[in-house]
């Protein structure tokens, strides 16, 4: 097994069709080490989210190579990719995206069930306890606050013990205090599990907490800075 969590080689990606087609990622190459925390920053439309989605196997590049946790995900068919994502990658969304008809416990158990784990509910319960929601197991998303919903989403993302955790503006929909506690949680879990964390953010404070900050501009990697603190 390699010590690289993610390796991208000369990545090009366009979206849209015909005259509306836009070249979003323009020849990006980078690698992220295991256990590293990386912040993706840049102005709107610079390609941060698209780059994150490509790393998570949610977008396929026009050309270039994406190797995640040792697997060349360009070679996986769609179903294999879905299963790969389910086990190796945890995703945290800005808008949480909990399934509204399922309780907190069921939401967290969902990826484990999809992966065929027999102890899905026991593990989900432990994960919810780990994010401080032991008393909210049978609550539906609509009965939880924004911060609590994001904690459930983080518990869900971390539950299958993914090698890589990606987060798209995880505090974007939260107030400052709640946002801070969520960030603390995310970094604590990353540290405890030894996961690699890649997050997109507009928040310079959050970016500064990462080991490394990648700045994108118009689809190019503009800078790659390692944090002094790291």
């Amino acid at each position, binding site marked *: 097994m390699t010590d690289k969590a993610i390796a991208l080689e000369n990545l090009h990606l366009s979206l849209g069709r015909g005259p509306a087609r836009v070249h979003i990622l323009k020849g990006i190459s980078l690698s992220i080490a295991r256990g590293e925390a990386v912040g993706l920053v840049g102005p709107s439309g610079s390609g941060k989210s698209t780059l*994150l989605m490509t790393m998570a196997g949610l977008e396929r590049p026009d050309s270039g190579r994406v190797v995640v946790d040792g697997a060349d995900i360009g070679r996986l068919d769609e179903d294999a990719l879905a299963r790969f994502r389910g086990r190796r990658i945890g995703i945290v969304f800005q808008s949480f*995206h909990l399934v509204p008809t399922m309780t907190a416990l069921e939401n967290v158990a969902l*990826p484990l069930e999809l992966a065929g784990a027999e102890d899905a509910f026991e593990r989900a319960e432990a994960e919810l306890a780990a994010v401080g929601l032991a008393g909210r197991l049978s609550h539906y998303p609509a009965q939880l606050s924004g911060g609590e919903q994001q904690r459930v989403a983080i518990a869900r993302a971390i539950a299958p013990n993914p090698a890589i955790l990606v987060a798209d503006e995880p505090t974007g929909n939260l107030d400052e205090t709640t946002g801070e506690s969520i960030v603390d949680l995310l970094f604590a879990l990353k540290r405890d599990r030894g996961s690699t964390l890649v997050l997109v953010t507009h928040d310079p404070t959050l970016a500064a907490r990462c080991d490394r900050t990648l700045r994108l501009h118009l689809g190019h990697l503009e800078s790659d800075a390692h944090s002094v603190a790291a």
Partner: protein
Amino acid sequence: MHGTIPANPPSKPRRFALPLVLRLALRELRGGLKGFGVFLGCIALGVAAISGVSSISRSLTEGLGKEGRKILGGDVTFSLIHREAGEAERAFFVSQGRVSSMATMRAMAIAGEKGSGLVEVKAVDAAYPTVGDLVTEPAAPVADLLAERSGAFGAIVDSALLIRLDLKVGDRVTVGAATFEIRASLVSEPDKVAGGVGFGPRFLVSQDGLRATGLLQPGSLVRWTYRLQLPPERAGNADLERVAAAANAAFPEAGWEIRSRVNADPRFARNIERFSQFLTLVGLTALLVGGVGVANAVRGFVDRKRASIATLKSLGAPGGQVVALYLVQVLLIAVVGILIGLCVGAALPFLVAGLFGSLLPIPIAPTLAPAELALAALYGALTALAFAIAPLGRAHDVPVSGLFRDQVDPERRFPRGRYLGILTVSIAVLVTVAVAAAYDRRIATIFVGAAVFAFALLRVLAGGVMALAKRLPRPRRATPRLALANLHRPGALTPSLVLSLGLGITLLVTLAVVDANLTRTLTRTLPERAPSFFFLDIPNAEAARFDAHLQAIAPDAKIERVPMMRGRLVSLKGVPVGEIKASEQVAWVLDGDRGITYTEYLPEGSTVVAGQWWPENYNGKPLVSFEEKIAEGLGLKVGDDIVVNVLGRNITAMVASLRTVEWRTLGINFVMVFSPNTFAGAPHTHLATVTFPNGADGARDAAILRETAKAFPAVTSLRVKEALDAFNDIVAQLVMAIRGASSIALLASLLVLAGALAAGHRARLYDAVILKTLGATRARLLSAYALEYGALGLATAVFGLIAGTLSAWYIVTRVMNMGFSAELSGAVVAAALAVVVAIGLGLAGTWRILSQKPAPYLRNL
């Protein structure tokens, strides 16, 4: 630390009782059935229609089966036309069990100056009624009511005769040479159904009474029925067959029709089945129309669930698993709809029996019909699957990236091959089941073809309207521009609206045009060309005198007279008719006895199309001329031999020619016409028609009836207008049933329409709020929507008129074999009404939207 996920997950979770997909589907369904109202309604309505029709039909057949002994008046009956059973035959009956006999015939009841009326005479013996009860008013023993007292026999008559001739109990009437005193009116007779549909009211007398009329002449049209009650120890179903076989073996030339209690009225049972199959097709139409509602609902469902679908995929669920998960949900909801439909359908016969049981002319035994209910459920499930799978298949390709960025206009792709495969298979199974389960596969196949054609055509029409709206120059004014844009924009209502409204209007127009043609043919065309009277049972010896009588009282009329007798086909080309599988259209020819005639010359209205008409004074082997279509259906060609039983004698004749016959003139014509030498010397009666050049005339007709009844009491007069009125009543009842069933299909299309409009309201809301913010008044928005719905309605109505008229033409000319006339006034009104309803429905929903304040919506847009 937590456990790890197995590298190769087990295909079946061992710990959970339910499969993962079902478990997740049930969790997702906690969100309730919101947005599935139309879906549930469509499936429930279609399944209720189909299961209701088949349950009622089954209950009627069960009723006939259970009450078979009562209807028949015994376990086995032998019925003979023209003649009574001979000594040996009677001895055979007596050897098998208790026998009771009955004679039925048509006759004229004459009430002096009050006039005369056609009656259905039933002459019974002392044992009557053998099974069940005869209810009379006043109630008294049957023997007393029918006995001869002070020069008159007793009669129990249908109250219809009392009303028609202004008679009351105690009055006297004559039939033939006998006088009858009306002793009671008939309330109900247990064996009414077995007698079939009669043209006149019942006239129940004793057999002595009938003999006294003098109407029982050789060749007169009387039917003798012998009812056998088998001893209880020998009355099993196998015994019924044994008795019938023994009877046929002992008397191979008897020419009788044998019925048993398990098969009391095969013709009636078959008619029930045939009609219910037709109504099932109408129910299937409702289901197919509802399918559009299913597809719309599922499309909306997938759109609403895009975030959940994408989330599941982001958590590792492959596309196929996601589709399976939502398919399970849709099918679970379909099961709810099917169960509602089945409950309604299964309850219908009980409801009908409870509410109308005593009014029905036939016994109904409310029955739970598991096979029929299962078939209806299968139809419902297949329709749900066929219409849901394509929109559901799109869930496979819902991109997870939608969770990161807003997808303004989700790309509409064709579903993947596997979902198209499921679609094809489910439609194929649906078609196969519909055709296989149909009584008349030809009609079912036509129905399937028409349905597929209509769907395809409406899809093309919708595409055409959208393409046209796209290419039309943009109007300068905002209102028509908005209307035009609404017609073709992505996610426009056009396809679903055109489909639901188009199917509804097509159905309405078809019904209206068929109805108009039926009414026209029955009420206008016929009387002008048809005879005014039929006279039956004219004794051979009095034929010439009868001609003179008619010429005297109707000098300007055209009079036709032919010999007539009844005969049963025994075998065709050496094959007994019982073993012949004739096509559905001609099977009736082999059922029971048919009127037959002989003539030297080719009858008017007939044209020989194969073979030769026999020469004058022909005296060789008996010959017969067959109606061409019937010969074709029976597989007969010129040169083939047939055997027909007339008056207890088997006669072999060779098919000499085939004729085409103009039946609609209602002139005298017969399926089988024999050469005169065939029946030389056989006793028979004559049938005459009187045709006036200027049609019916009440006063003149009444005079003819009166004079003829006075001069020839033995002759039965049938006024065609009355017979047609009776026939019209039956047709009107059938049309009512068809309209009832079709209204369910229309209701389904209305439901789909309302559902499609409601689904479009979200986009309307967005438009309305933005436009109102920019200063558009409600009136302006409303007129834009009215313009849009109006354009759609108009295009669909024009299509519906054309398609409906074409399908009506097909039904009228090909299925009903009648002439077609484009009677479109009713159809145009129906189509216009449908458009008005559609526009009204659309605007009603929109008005609610327009009345909303923009601010709360703008915050969420």
